[in-house]
């Protein structure tokens, strides 16, 4: 089954801070998440998090999403978009 997804207004503001290429990657991730297998449909909790990593040049970019699932309306609501960038010289 396929869910649709939407952003809360504050999450959209966070999303708009992303560079366009990373914003596109984020939407692609959401579209993948939106195709929910029946097993996952039963298993997923209402609130879940999803993260992914991309490497661009010398930087590693981490994106973190908090998502609320509305089973009844088959919607994923993106609540927060967090990011962290680690450069080669920023080893913790």
């Amino acid at each position, binding site marked *: 089954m396929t869910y*649709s997804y939407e952003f809360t*207004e504050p999450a959209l503001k966070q999303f708009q801070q992303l560079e366009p290429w990373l914003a596109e990657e984020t939407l692609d991730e959401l579209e993948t998440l939106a195709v929910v297998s029946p097993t996952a449909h039963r298993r997923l909790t209402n609130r879940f998090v999803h993260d992914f990593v991309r490497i661009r040049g010398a930087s590693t970019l981490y994106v973190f999403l*908090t998502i*609320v699932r509305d089973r009844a309306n088959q919607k994923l609501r993106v609540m927060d978009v967090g990011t962290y960038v680690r450069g080669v010289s920023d080893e*913790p």
Partner: protein
Amino acid sequence: MVAMSLVDSVFSNVGSAERSTRAVALLAQAALKDLAQIEKLDDALAPDDPAQFDRGAASLMRSEFERWAAYTASLLERIDRFAAINGPVAGVKLLHRAYGKTRARLSISLDDMEQSYRALAEGRTVSGEEVRRDLFLRVH
């Protein structure tokens, strides 16, 4: 979390490199397990009604993630220094990823979270199609 004094003792141990590498890998593994526990607790404390935001619980969980991130930053610094001399350590890539994910999580403030739940309750949301369209116009 393993006490930093014990961590330092592992790194200053002048035993065989192989033995030290094994001990360091165990420290990385322990940190990953700690994070998994914090994440489980975070899931367990999430309100039954996903539209409700519990600021008190979110604040306590945030402190846990912050404590873990501060500890792991120190640990990774030591591990990376160790690995530069002694070669790769199992589990370190995973720990770097977990650290990055947690820092990304912590980039979201409690106020941001609360505002987002309020927006959800008030129906202030924007569809994915609209967001995709706006992004397309921004890029092209």
